[in-house]
């Protein structure tokens, strides 16, 4: 290997570890606890009209059996430096969660006490994380650094007790849109799959029987082929987990100028654009409506994917979760662009200033995406990951002019 000049450094590495975690679990999870407050337990049993008596109810169901969830992390890869300028790092990783801690969804026949957190199931993530970077001088004045990174994901729910899935709590007016089911990625979107808009009465009558079916409304896919559209025809509509995410950072220095940029992208993920339930339908809420309705179905405009405009909210339009809201959430975003100029230091030293740098910084200057919501990069809770609930768009374009002075 001594003769190999192009290779400066090569390292092969691997690791395996199990980490116990009970982060989400309150220490009270093991106990059935009783309590209550004015609104949901106290009562004017004496019939005074102006006073209440204390009531106590079972607030939560205890689960003494809950134990750690095990995060099993394994990876294998190599790091190499070549030609003094290139660094390459590639690794395969696997992160499994055994005994994921999650509140057990219970039917109301068990009562209203909060469900205990249980070790509900196993989840597996696998993927490849690769990065390549270049760091070197092109000419004596021009320095270039490039670093790019790509991470692929494959996520799957491996084990869940009967019924083989669990749904997180939802606060959307048209019901839950997320299901975690064996064999599917975590947080997959679940609902009716739209295969078109009914063009006319003839199409309605020759299609599988569907509640509230009418020309201009959604035609759902008959998943089980029984010629009836029922809850059994709900299916998986996409997942918020990307196939891969990537980034590219480029830095340039030329004499007193410096330049850096940071691109970030996510590919292959879907998003559930829930606000369209309010902006695209009149039957859901009175308020401003989207311009997509300009292309709405009419008897003359039948070749469209926008349903007809009407005041009612039906099974065949806006009252159930369906694929109308599922959009391609892929994006590429220029997160940051900086151009700076540093004044010659020697000229400033006599007035006691070490260095002055003037710079222009732009954040989120552009985003390439097909997503029609405000921002494909969603915040929000992890249980509703990928569901846009009208989140505030935190990543708006902004520009900064800056001055750094060091004394």
């Amino acid at each position, binding site marked *: 290997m001594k003769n190999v000049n192009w290779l400066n450094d090569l390292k092969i590495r691997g690791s395996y570890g199990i980490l116990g975690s009970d982060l989400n679990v309150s220490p009270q999870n093991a106990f059935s606890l009783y309590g209550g407050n004015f609104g949901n337990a106290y*009562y*004017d049993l004496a019939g005074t009209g102006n006073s209440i008596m204390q009531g*106590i109810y079972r607030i939560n169901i205890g689960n003494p059996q809950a134990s750690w969830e095990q995060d099993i992390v394994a990876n294998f890869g190599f790091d190499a430096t070549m030609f003094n300028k290139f660094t390459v790092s590639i690794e395969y990783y696997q992160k499994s969660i055994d005994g994921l801690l999650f509140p057990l969804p219970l039917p109301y026949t*068990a009562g209203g006490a909060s469900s205990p957190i249980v070790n509900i199931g196993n989840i597996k993530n696998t993927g490849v994380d690769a990065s390549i970077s270049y760091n070197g001088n092109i000419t004596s004045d021009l320095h270039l650094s490039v670093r790019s990174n790509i991470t692929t994901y494959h996520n799957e729910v491996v084990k869940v007790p009967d019924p083989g899935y669990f749904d997180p709590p939802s606060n959307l007016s*048209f019901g839950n849109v997320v299901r975690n089911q064996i064999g599917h990625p975590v947080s997959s979107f679940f609902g009716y799959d739209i295969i078109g808009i009914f063009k006319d009465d003839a199409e309605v009558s020759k299609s599988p029987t569907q509640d509230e079916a009418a020309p201009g409304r959604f035609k759902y896919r008959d998943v089980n082929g029984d010629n009836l559209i029922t809850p059994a025809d709900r299916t998986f509509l996409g997942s918020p987990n990307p196939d891969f995410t990537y980034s590219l950072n480029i830095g340039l220095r030329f004499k007193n100028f410096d330049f850096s940029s940071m691109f970030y992208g996510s590919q292959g993920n879907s998003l559930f654009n829930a606000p369209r339930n309010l902006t695209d339908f009149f*039957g859901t809420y009175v308020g401003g409506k989207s311009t997509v309705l300009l292309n709405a179905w009419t008897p003359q405009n039948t070749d469209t994917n926008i349903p007809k405009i009407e005041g009612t909210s039906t099974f065949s339009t806006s009252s159930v979760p369906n694929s109308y809201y599922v959009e391609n959430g892929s994006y590429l975003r220029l997160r940051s662009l900086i151009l700076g100029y540093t004044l010659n230091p020697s000229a400033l030293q006599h007035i006691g200033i070490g260095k002055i740098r003037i710079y222009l910084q732009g954040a989120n200057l552009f985003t390439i995406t097909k997503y029609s919501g405000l921002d494909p990069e969603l915040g929000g809770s992890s249980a509703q990951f990928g569901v846009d609930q009208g989140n505030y768009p935190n990543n708006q374009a902004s520009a900064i002019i800056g001055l750094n002075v060091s004394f």
Partner: protein
Amino acid sequence: MKNFIHKLNISTVLFLVLFSEGCKKSYLEKKPLGYVTQTVLYNKEGADALLIAAYSLLDGSPNNTQNAWSSMNNWIYGGVASDDAHKGTEYGNGPGIEQIESFRADASNRDLLAKWEAVYEGAQRANDVIRLLANIPENSISKDDAQQIKAEAVFLRGVYLTEAAKMWKNVPYVDESIDFASGNYNVPNSGPIWDKIEEDFKYAAANLTDTKGEAGRANSWAAKSFLAKIYMFDHKFSEAQPLLNDIILNGVTSLGRKYALVNNYSDNFDAIKGKNNAETVFATQMSVQDGTGGENGNAADWLIGMYAGPSTCCGYYQPSFSLVNSFKTDAVTGLPLISTFNDFDVKNDMNIKSTEPFTAYEGPLDPRLDHTVGRRGIPYRDWGIHPGYSWIRQQACGGPYSQIKNAYNQADEATTSDGSNKAQTSNNLVLIRFDDVILWAAEVEVEIGSLSNAQEYVNLIRARAANENDWVKTYVDNSDPLKGFTNIPAANYKIGLYTNEFESKGQEFAREAVRFERKLEFGMEGHRFFDLQRWDNGTGYMADAINAYIQHETSVPSYNWLYMNGATFVKGKNEIYAIPLTQIDLSVVDGAPILHQNPNY
């Protein structure tokens, strides 16, 4: 040396303390702070506290966030879904309720889920009491106390499951054996559960005392009355007849007052005069100005607060044109126009601004109308002449009328209203009233007894309504309604008794007359949908009534009831509601759901 001994002593003591503490097993066991664990409740006080929390859901509001879709007064499921009322407020506001009213609500409707949650949480809270009692040592509670607490809990379970049975008919029956710990909480809905609810009320009736220390507790007569109600829903008239007679002759309230029709019909909707009066068989106790901001005062009804006038939000639940028309009476006999009431509309102020002149309808009307419906030109309690348009949130959507039974009196504002919108009141929600019992008795007499007895019962109700002292009167001073009322009726009230029509016109007429009387007596009280359901019993009676109603309301001139376009009540489907899909999804046992959807959903 002295120092050493000193040190030794301290460390020895420390060691002993640690050692002795360490010897106790409990050293590592910390009790959760700020909560109560079950063993603390193993006594009478504990059981009673659990029982109070089971009572507290009689308002239908289990959540801290006021839950407007599960109220026990059933303004949505019994009122808006029937020919009593429209959803009201504005178009698109409350889309789930629009679906229910237009019979488009399917299993995914979230409002139905809220109702399901509330009734099953109520039933399980009652079961928690029974389960706790089984664990209380004998010396911590007297036998009598344990018996009363258990019987009250069984009664409450029956009340909650009655709600479930009215809504969905084919529902899981959940008694104290159904629990998380037993793992049997997925319960099938293999058919109606009236028999099991009957058993609960029979048990409660046999074990509860006739009177109670507190007005809000259920006594044996409340249990008997609920049992009668179940018989009515289960069409067991021969069982109902002797029971109803017993209740009418001997029944007393929990405080020992003999059941009676109070002189003034409107007292029943007065937060003070109506509270646990002689007509109250069993009620949800409402409390305001108790330091909670109205959380115990009709908390689940906050949406139906008036949009303007006594409260400032939200204007849901507006009486229908058909309901108002039902109060028209014959100018000569004062009897209702049972088959022709909807031939023309009582004059209304659709599209007439409050600033424009309007004279109210001058034809003969049942005086109960203005205790049931707020309308333009008529005194609205002691709040002033109802101004019509300006008190209505969106006339085009809800129509020109307001609810009034759930409002409070201006003079009593300080003690009977609460909440930032003043939509919370201390008006009790009477789940069974004595006039209810009397009209059930009338129904039973029509079916299996004597028509003249039925007429006598109906006339009791009508005679009370004919008490002129209780008719709405004009104000002494329209600009200051608190100055009181004159002796001049505010409208052309005319009500008469049946003379011999029940016998002379026969059973078919008598049946319709009793049913119509219930519509008038209980207008805007959330019973109507379930009465129609009871009377339907597979005949299509309900579909005919509701479809005729939709036909009428959608053709009222200048009223454009948008979301009802194309709405139809489907016979064999819409008499009961869809079982919430999330509950079916969760009911999977051995790979298949054991909760089955109701027919045709």
